[in-house]
């Protein structure tokens, strides 16, 4: 830019310009404007990229921390098993009134009058309702603990968690606030005691769906996504590579192969939701496969990824120079041997790059999965691809529809995890290309 202005200034006193006005100033100004538009356009694009990433990260990084309240829980036999029948009836331990233990511990810790119902309710609301299952698991795993007093780290309720992370505006009138003044005071007491701590949120990675934000996690969804990616990899790569080899190396150039070619380019541009309709009608309705299963999701994503892989593979095969083929054929290799022993290994980096990019695309795809019933509230890890499961992006979609503040944080956290996966995959593809790609 500066070069141009100086050259412009330097050229203006030349007599030719003064003699015949060809509007050089105006034209150079137009040139500068045109350039500025280009820079502006690129800057706008990069600005939105930054804004998007900043939104997600700033809202989501706190999801990796979780507020816990450490309480000395007295596993009182009177509460858990008043009639001492656990030896004969093990189900007793499953159904015991564990929230009572939490209430007692809280009341004692905070020094609340046990008869002041409203206060006790406020205090117990600070601990997540998932404390019941948490304590149950502790007792079932180790029944000898009954009668002892042990400090247990319990999850804080979602709103308390948000308040502890400073996401709730405490200046708002108390009536319009999810966290009450008393709770804030208790939080301070607990924090001073060191009983309220923020620790790394392992639950985010190990739990499944939950209606309580503090207990919800992406572990189950991630496993569903993993199943689908394995299915896509196992099917799309061999089928895609075989199809490309035939089309690129063997197929005669005629109307039919032309049709296949146009067809594949078209399939790459078909809206993804159409693949969902295909999966619903063929795999579920016609073939009778189970709804919500990772198998169906994997098959749908395979069909969706195939054109991408075929296009990438054909480009990679085309890039191998004909001299390689001529040399192999000249030494007496059959056409099939030439391709499988020489061309394919040389094209492999390009093929794998295309496959990884296709997989990354499939990993982030949501719309077709909504139609085949993967919008499911799945709490347990699916044992096989035939069991109901959900996927990472679908989990994000479901959380995005929840109203609570704590779910916005979880959604952003899950998006961060998804984006990290995608970045790693794409980086892998780039490195693969840099490391192995040959320029002939």
């Amino acid at each position, binding site marked *: 830019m500066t070069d141009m202005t100086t050259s412009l200034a330097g050229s203006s006193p030349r007599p030719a310009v003064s003699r015949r006005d060809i509007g050089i100033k105006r034209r150079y100004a137009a040139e500068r404007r045109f350039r500025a538009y*280009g820079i502006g356009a*690129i800057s706008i694009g990069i600005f939105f*990229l930054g804004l998007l990433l900043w939104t997600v990260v700033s809202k989501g990084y706190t999801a990796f921390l979780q507020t816990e309240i450490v309480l000395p829980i007295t596993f009182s036999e009177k509460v858990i098993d008043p009639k001492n029948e656990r030896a004969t009836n093990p189900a007793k331990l499953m159904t015991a009134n564990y929230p009572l233990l939490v209430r007692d511990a809280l009341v004692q810790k905070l020094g609340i009058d046990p008869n002041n119902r409203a206060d006790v309710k406020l205090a117990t609301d600070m601990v997540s309702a998932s404390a019941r299952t948490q304590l149950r698991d502790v007792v079932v795993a180790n029944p000898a603990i009954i009668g002892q007093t042990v400090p247990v780290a319990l999850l804080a309720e979602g709103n308390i968690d948000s308040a502890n992370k400073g996401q709730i505006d405490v200046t708002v009138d108390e009536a319009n606030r999810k966290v009450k003044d008393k709770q804030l005071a208790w939080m301070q007491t607990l924090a001073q005691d060191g009983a309220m701590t923020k620790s790394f949120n392992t639950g985010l990675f190990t739990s499944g769906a939950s209606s309580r934000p503090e207990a919800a996690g992406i572990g189950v969804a991630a496993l569903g996504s993993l199943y689908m990616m394995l299915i896509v990899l196992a099917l799309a790569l061999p089928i895609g590579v075989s*199809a490309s080899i035939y089309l690129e190396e063997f197929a005669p150039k005629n109307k039919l192969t032309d049709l296949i070619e146009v067809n594949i380019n078209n399939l790459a541009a078909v809206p993804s939701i*159409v693949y969902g309709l295909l999966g619903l009608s063929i795999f579920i309705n016609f073939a009778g496969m189970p709804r919500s299963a990772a198998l169906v999701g994997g098959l749908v994503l395979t069909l969706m990824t195939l054109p991408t892989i075929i296009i990438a593979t054909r480009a990679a095969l085309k890039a191998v120079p004909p001299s390689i083929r001529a040399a192999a054929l000249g030494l007496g290799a059959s056409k099939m041997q030439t391709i499988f022993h020489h061309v394919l290994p040389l094209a492999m980096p390009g093929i794998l790059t295309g496959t990884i990019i296709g997989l990354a695309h499939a990993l982030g795809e949501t719309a077709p999965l909504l139609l085949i019933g993967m919008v499911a509230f799945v709490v347990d890890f699916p044992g096989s691809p035939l069991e109901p499961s959900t996927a990472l992006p679908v989990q994000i979609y479901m959380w995005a529809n929840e109203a609570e503040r704590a779910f916005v944080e979880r959604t952003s956290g899950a998006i961060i995890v998804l984006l990290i996966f995608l970045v790693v995959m794409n980086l892998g593809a780039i490195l693969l290309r840099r490391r192995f790609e040959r320029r002939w």
Partner: protein
Amino acid sequence: MSASLLFFLVLLVGASAFVMGRSRAMATAGGKLSSLHSLPGYHGSYAAIWALLPALVVLGVWLVAAPPMIDRSVLFHLPTEVLNQGSAPAELALGQVKSVARGLALLSDTERSALDSGAINLRDAMAAKGIPLASAGEAWMIESATDFNRMTANSHLAMAGVVLLLAIGGAVLALRGISQRFRARNRVEQVILGGLILASSIAILTTIGIIGSMLSEALRFFASVSPMEFFFGTVWDPRFAAAGQAGQAGQFGLLPLLAGTLYIAFVAMLFAVPIGLFAAIYMAEYANNTVRSVAKPLLEILAGIPTIVYGFFALVTVGPFLRDISGQLNGLVTGNYQSFIQAQSVLTAGIVMGIMLIPFVSSLSDDIITQVPRSLRDGSLGLGATRSETIKRVVLPAALPGIVGALLLTASRAVGETMIVVLAAGVAARMQLNPFEPMTTVTVKIVNQLTGDLEFTSPQTLVAFALGITLFAITLCLNIYALYIVRKYREQYE
């Protein structure tokens, strides 16, 4: 014998056929490998193919075809009073028989005799094995279930026999054919070529599957709603059949959805095209290598971000921002701080979709601009035109057909986009022109009609397929035309 065990056994036969074929070929060569037409490995593969291929095909067909045949035969032998009730109760009875059959297999001999003598109730016996029965269970169910179990067992036995016979027979046949002059390699390569052709036909099959499945479901929809009403109806009100009004069909007018789809796509293109095009021009004509190598991948990251993330971005950032800023603006002008842009609106969805489309426009146009031959630029610059004049008067007109093709491809993506509009455009189906109000799209309605409990007989769910085929037809036309233009353009400068 279970199917997986059988599969494993067949694989075992195949593996041993390979080993035997190879060693037999080496034996016939008598230490002089060059006397063989094909390498020993090909002879081995040939034997393995004969062992595996027919056996596995039969195994697959049997596994798919046998259960429905058994079902039919059991259904046919149900008591006549059940069959006379119509097909739905008969299917239900068949389901019960199958549950009973599963339970019977779990019973011990003493339990079974107690059941046969009537000492215990069928439902109780099943419940003890963890199989709930809807009705009390009747004697004919036990009979049918026993039949069912017997037929299944017979079928499995027959399948195992046939498949194993085929595998071993195939292997023996292939092994006996091995000789020095035998062209094993050519045969194996033929089979591989067949596999390659099969793989490439999957692309065609997918298209046929898409068109066939959607068309057949859409035809079922058009059986209850006339195509005129669907394609030219102006009211979308599918009215999920609630209790008491099951007879009401609802109205399925496509036009409001189509209007919303096209409007949002138009706003998105309005946003993406200038930005993407100017970015592409700058990148292709002005930027030096450093800028290019940084800015191009950065913009392309936008294309790699999943659309659900854009949807979330619209939902929590862009939508509320537009709503608040419009409230502020309104307040400054009129003193009334009521926002005139709704959080879910055509504008929100359009802008966010536009951001997503920027990299598509820019990288497609970039490719096309760089394909314009150098000589055209040099000629123009040599005549004294500035660079921008060259671009505007020479490069862009030359690249125009290709750019139009690229824009059409982008538009087809905008029309088919789902997750952004699901989260940002709203669900109200109406025809209006205010971009600050929510509208809805074809894709949103496909998702709405198909999530939740489904029954595949009502027009409320089948309409999704009619919408789907409309969407497919629109994007197909855009794509074919765009690909045609781009191809022709490429040929022009090659």
